[in-house]
């Protein structure tokens, strides 16, 4: 039980600053608990998003001591409380108020990705047969809770604001889930290279490090997609092979 200092960013699209608050931290508390406590005690108008408090809805994304985190999954006893705790909204998206930001860009980007296009059903009753091994590979991508922490940390978006040129790791995970699906027949490689800007990713793995669902974003989604793009656009031998043997 200790009185702890919190610096929380307060403001809106026109600007803002860190404000200091102090509240008592008790055993088992997470950052979101402290924010709620501060809301109740001294800042009734403090805006923050949350929903499940179980790391499953992806609403409470913010930056705790400069690191993108789910506030509900960040335990206070894992932080150096003697130095106080810094909480700010995600830097990559336009802020709405205090800790909330406008993440709608992510949904617009997702809509641009060509949807699932399954092959003709394998059976007369309109069903398919899928080998478990084949579906296991894309299962991991479906764990995504759309918290957008990976988008927030990705320097292509965060630092360079290339939102028009690069769709970001979350959207690449979504694309991988479709592109590598054993039933899917759609071709997204040209989009990946051009409109989605996969070449902007320089595989620095920050997205993988912050993902609360521990999706191996870079190694299992982005790099395999990059390799598919290489097959199509940069590797004359594979192109020749595919032409000759029609794969």
């Amino acid at each position, binding site marked *: 039980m200790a009185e702890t200092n919190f610096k929380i960013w307060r403001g809106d699209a026109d600007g803002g600053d860190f404000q200091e608050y102090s509240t008592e931290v008790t055993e088992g508390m997470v950052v979101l608990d402290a924010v709620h406590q501060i809301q109740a005690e001294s800042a009734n108008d403090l805006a923050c998003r949350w929903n499940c408090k179980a790391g499953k809805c992806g609403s409470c994304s913010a930056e705790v001591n*400069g690191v993108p985190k789910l506030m509900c999954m960040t335990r206070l006893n894992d932080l150096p409380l003697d130095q106080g705790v810094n909480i700010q909204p995600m830097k990559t998206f336009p802020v709405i108020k205090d800790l909330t930001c406008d993440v709608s860009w992510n949904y617009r980007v997702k809509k641009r990705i060509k949807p699932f296009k399954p092959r003709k059903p394998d059976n007369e009753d309109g069903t398919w047969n899928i080998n478990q091994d*084949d579906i296991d590979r894309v299962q991991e991508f479906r764990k995504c809770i759309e918290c957008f922490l990976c988008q927030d940390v990705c320097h292509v978006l965060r*630092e360079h604001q290339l939102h028009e040129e690069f769709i970001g790791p979350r959207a690449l995970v979504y694309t991988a889930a479709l592109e*590598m699906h054993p039933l899917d027949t759609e071709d997204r490689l040209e989009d990946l290279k051009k409109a989605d*800007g996969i070449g*902007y990713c*320089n*595989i620095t793995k920050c997205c993988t490090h912050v993902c609360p669902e521990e999706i191996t974003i870079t190694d299992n989604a982005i790099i395999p997609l990059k390799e598919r793009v290489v*097959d199509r656009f940069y*590797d004359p031998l594979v192109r020749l092979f595919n032409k000759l043997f029609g794969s």
Partner: protein
Amino acid sequence: MAYEPLTISGSRIPNTIRRDAWWRTPVLVFIGFSTFIVYSTWAAFQGEHYTFGPYLSPFYSPELFGTSSHAWFGIRPGFWPDWFPYSPAFLILWAPAGFRLTCYYYRGAYYKAFWADPPACAVSEPRKNYRGENSFPLIIQNIHRYMLYVAMGFIVFLSWDAILGFNFDGKFGIGVGSLVLMINVVLLAGYTFGCHSLRHLVGGALDQISKSPTRQCAWKGVTCLNKKHQMWAWLSLFWVGFTDVYVRLCSMGIWTDFRIL
């Protein structure tokens, strides 16, 4: 819609409010790579002390042209200009260097450590412009799979060197150096066969991989190594450098190669 970043912590460079030692990994990577690059360049220029008994330094293998008994074709290639110093390492070192330089793991690591692109996750960058691997020059990184083909050839040569490392004047023997060479090839193979491009080529490209059981098996094997690709990358880098040091110091008479058998 324009996306203005939320600038919060003033104009400190690097701009971050991270409190952990975020600089530690990039600094270690910088030191590790720099040490290796300086040492391997120096060793390549020496052109001597690269063999000892049955051992051949991996920096000099395969020895296409050279003065030792390991040389394949002669002493010095005809096309080599007289005025330029010659070392057998010059003919081959481009291959492992190119393989590592274009490796997905190393790329991510040295973009951070050498280019500060970014310096670390959620830490601001010193430069405004960014083109990534989307255009020249870094688009060249896409040749990685071709470097892989060459690197796999090197595994064959280095395996042969490791086998020869047990041949002491026609008799089987084991020296500490034989084990050093053997460990070297095991670590390099662990690194090479865990390559992301290989993972794609052996089976990752297929959406219904279960229909090709052999490729599925290969994919699983590569995936297993690939999960620890970073570890293999560093262990093999360290050990390949150490192997050269070992052979060099034995050849110079500073270290003694103890015989186990």
